[in-house]
């Protein structure tokens, strides 16, 4: 946990009055002192950031190299038409700060590459994979493994979404779960699908910070918005995995 320790203030006790009975004062303090990196401030990253901020996570780093465009607005709920052509990371940080000026919000307007992914995850307790492509997702997964940082992955398409929580050394990683990425163009996405999965990511991050077992450890938890059902697809650690197994030092 970065920086100086923050104790619960009277303002915090009031702000989290309806939550402290669930998480405890110590749990709430854990949230206030936690640092989370949200990689991707799109359809998943917007709701994840909103709910993590509302829950009282004290330090949020928002990473995105893109600018807001009109076609983002059906699902990227931190932005409006006045934000078009502005930096997503910058606007998202501004909106989160306006919701809670007590949170340390750090926008990073960078593209995830082998060079940038290391500094971007520095000092983080959890990374949230809210990206939109597998090459960048795999980079983040590999660095989370290397640093030993839990990673909460989600992805969406249309009415469907998937969630996977990776605890390095203790669970299967993203590369084990999805060794071959789906091909094709950016899929259509219903805003609520991204909202549901982004909220689930926030929930997984909170579970980790509160010491609870994640729902999607060693399982792809799949949301089917057509039938309104959740399914768990069990995932095992692949001993030869290039990110978490014996394949990891072979480039």
């Amino acid at each position, binding site marked *: 946990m970065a920086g100086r320790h923050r104790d619960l203030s009277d303002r915090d006790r009031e702000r989290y009055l309806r939550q402290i009975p669930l998480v405890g004062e110590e749990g709430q303090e854990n949230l206030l002192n936690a640092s989370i990196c949200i990689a*991707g401030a799109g359809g998943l990253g917007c709701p994840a950031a909103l709910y993590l901020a509302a829950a009282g996570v004290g330090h949020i780093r928002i990473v995105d190299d893109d600018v807001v465009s009109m076609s983002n607005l059906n699902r990227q709920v931190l932005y409006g038409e006045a934000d078009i052509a502005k930096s997503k990371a910058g606007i998202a940080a501004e909106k989160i700060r306006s919701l809670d000026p007590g949170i340390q919000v750090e926008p990073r307007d960078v593209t995830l590459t082998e060079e940038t992914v290391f500094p971007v995850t520095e000092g983080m307790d959890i990374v949230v994979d809210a990206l*939109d*492509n597998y090459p960048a997702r795999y980079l983040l997964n590999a660095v989370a493994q290397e640093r030993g940082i839990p990673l909460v992955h989600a992805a*969406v398409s249309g009415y469907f979404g*998937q969630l996977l929580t990776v605890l390095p050394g203790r669970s299967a990683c993203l590369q084990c779960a999805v060794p071959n990425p*789906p*091909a094709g163009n950016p899929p259509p*996405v219903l805003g609520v699908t991204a909202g549901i999965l982004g909220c689930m990511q926030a929930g997984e991050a909170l579970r980790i910070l509160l010491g609870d077992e994640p729902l999607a450890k060693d399982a792809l938890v799949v949301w089917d918005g057509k039938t309104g059902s959740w399914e768990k*697809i069990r995932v095992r650690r692949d001993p030869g995995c290039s990110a978490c197994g014996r394949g990891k030092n072979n480039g």
Partner: protein
Amino acid sequence: MDDTIHVRTFARFRELFGDGLEIAVAAPATVRSVAAELARVNPAGARELLDGEGNLSKSVIVMVNRERVAGAGREDVPVHPGDEVAFYPPVAGG
């Protein structure tokens, strides 16, 4: 005596193929012949299940009796009457 194979599908594949299917394939059956039978009865779904050469799309996650089958030889994994084969197409968007 149960001589069919149970097929489970998830997400987009449930929409395309339905779920809880009971299909009959000639013995000796494999993951490949089960996928081929699904594709035969549902040509629209076939475009998302199989690649251009008629092989199972590489990204599709396959489980036989709830255990993942992966790697180059996964299409040749044998499937017996009463077994369950499940297919899930992972998603990418964010």
